[in-house]
């Protein structure tokens, strides 16, 4: 008993705590000893490709699946504790809303399930509709809402119980960029209220908005840390090029000695240079190819770092020993 008390007090900062989670669907092992924790007022981005096991980990986190190994705890209590249901919120893929119920009715339903009084419910609904900018849509059926609106409604339904922990499973899938930005603004406000958020996504640009990120690959968290820390890579240097003729010179840039990869993006490109090559030599070579090109050392983003790794991994088997 004393050990348990100790662990729950030391974990007081960690609201969501997944330790050594293992899980298999039949013979297929999906998760292998995954450990992570999410503190109060923190957004943890669980990043992985489709089928990496993100949803499974989230479902273990909310107590819907029992792991084969490890433990899932919320606020220091095991997930089997039914009282935790009032303190967590879950937004599944597809949102789990009732399409034939109106915005107001969906909210009222979830408020009832969390035992809110009629007065509190109306007050909370007014507040949430205000925050999400959905006051004009109270009577509209959820099934007739746009993707972005539906996502906001799902968030509002999740927030109605004032949870301390939220588990969001790819909530911005199929949502336009404007709605996505609005959603992140809402989420930032929720974070500011001290809610611990575990956010599963396949989008690296979204992961960069998180406080901490874990990369889920082959059932394991291959890396964890702040997006900035994960973007740092010791074995390459990045340059950002800006110019009008980048497209035409791409092939020549790629064939320069010491250049690993070039990612073009409109009139810009990120150029990765091996760590042991002098940047000045490369820069002067680039100037020779395209004299009008602007060149600056690039602060590597998480997205570019991960993309580089993936690209290198893909080319590795065909040209062994090249890196």
């Amino acid at each position, binding site marked *: 008993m004393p050990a348990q008390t100790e662990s729950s007090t030391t974990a007081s900062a960690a609201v969501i705590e997944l330790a050594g989670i293992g899980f298999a669907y039949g013979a297929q092992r999906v998760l292998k000893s995954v450990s992570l924790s999410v503190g109060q007022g923190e957004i943890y981005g669980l990043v992985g490709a489709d089928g990496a096991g993100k949803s499974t980990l989230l479902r273990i986190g909310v107590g819907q699946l029992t792991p084969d190994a490890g433990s899932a705890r919320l606020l220091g209590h095991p997930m089997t504790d039914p009282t935790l*249901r009032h303190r967590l919120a*879950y937004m599944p893929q597809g949102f*789990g809303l009732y399409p034939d119920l109106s915005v107001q009715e969906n909210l009222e*339903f979830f408020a009832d*399930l969390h*035992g809110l009084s009629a007065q509190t419910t109306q007050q909370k609904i007014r507040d949430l509709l205000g925050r999400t900018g959905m006051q004009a849509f109270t009577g509209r059926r959820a099934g007739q809402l746009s993707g972005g609106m539906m996502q906001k409604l799902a968030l509002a339904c999740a927030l109605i119980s004032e949870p301390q922990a939220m588990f969001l499973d790819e909530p911005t899938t199929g949502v336009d960029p404007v709605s996505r930005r609005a959603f992140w603004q809402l989420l930032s406000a929720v974070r500011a209220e001290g809610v611990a958020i575990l956010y599963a996504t396949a989008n690296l640009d979204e992961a960069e908005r998180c406080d901490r990120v874990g990369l889920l690959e082959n059932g394991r968290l291959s890396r964890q840390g702040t997006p900035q820390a994960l973007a740092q890579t010791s074995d390459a240097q990045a340059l950002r090029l800006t110019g009008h003729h980048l497209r035409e010179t791409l092939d020549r840039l790629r064939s320069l000695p010491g250049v690993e990869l070039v990612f073009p993006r409109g009139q810009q490109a990120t150029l990765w240079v091996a760590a042991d090559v002098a940047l000045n030599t490369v820069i002067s070579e680039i100037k020779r190819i395209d004299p009008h090109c602007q060149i600056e050392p690039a602060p590597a983003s998480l997205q570019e770092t991960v993309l580089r790794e993936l690209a290198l991994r893909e080319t590795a088997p065909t040209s062994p020993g090249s890196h």
Partner: protein
Amino acid sequence: MNLQHVRAMARKEWWHLLRDPRSLALMLLMPTMLLFLFGYAIRLDITAAPIAIVDESGTAASRDLSAHFAASHAFDVQGGYTDRQSVRVALQRGDLWAALLIPADYAPRLRQGDARIQLLIDGVDANTARLMHNYAQLLIRSLALQASGKTPPLQLEDRVFFNETRESRLAIVPGVIALVMAVIGALMTSLTIAREMELGNLVMLRTTPLTRNEFLLGKLAPYFVLGLVDLGVATAAAVWVFDVPLRGGLMGLIGVSALFLLVVMLQGAMISIIAGNQLLASQIALIQTFLPAFLLSGFIFAIENMPLVLQYLTYAVPARYYVALSKAIFLKGLSPLMLWSVTLPLVLILVVLLRVTLVKARRLGLLS
């Protein structure tokens, strides 16, 4: 059990029902349709069967015989058939269902006490053929009695109770109510939980404090209410449209109907949980509840005439008990308490189903 949770579930379910035109139509039109379909279409007795009488005798005696058939409500004598050949053709074409041939020597042989007449019957529909044969025999026998001028030493004086005019409708309509309840109760509830699983709402509900008992109770309550409304409609139609006398107490009828409704609703819920999708659930529900209610309940086919194996099987069909009870309440005016040997198995089935459904409901993954 948190009543706020149950109420929220029930209210939500009610909204689903009211907003889904297909379910609503099924709930409201199906009972009326079934009632009218079965009430009017299924006849186990015959009226006005087209019959031709070929009178080759042309005597007072043969005309007397013809008049007897013409006066019967079972037969409708068609004119214009004078020879055996035309009758055969008409039977083949289906214009006639039967033909009575009175031979030329009918009158003299009748006087000798040895008259023969021939009845040609279209036997394609064996049941109708049998009924026509029985009616004709009855007519001939009464005529023979008259002709002999003396009363036979032995006579049967029958008096039919409960369905004095022996109309099959009176027995069928109470049975249709069982069918209506089975459809509404099982088919509708079989869809409701599966829908929740299919749409992915259950995933969300699992993280709320809703327990599985609250979930089930809230889900089924609106269907129970609608089932009772359907019972009201069906009973009203039975009494006022089909003239079926309701001799027993209304409360008794409501009581056993509620009991049966609960049984079929639990069947539907269990199917829904096991199937997990609406299409499969509705198909299983049809096979498991509607068909047995139709074929194995004694609604149309008497259980006593079934092969022994099927007879035993009917003990597991809840509709069997309900059909027996509703017929007894409607026609015999009995109370369900007097029929405890029929009511009790229904109660037992309810208890067993409740237990099994609650165990199966663990699959839903909701709080216990």
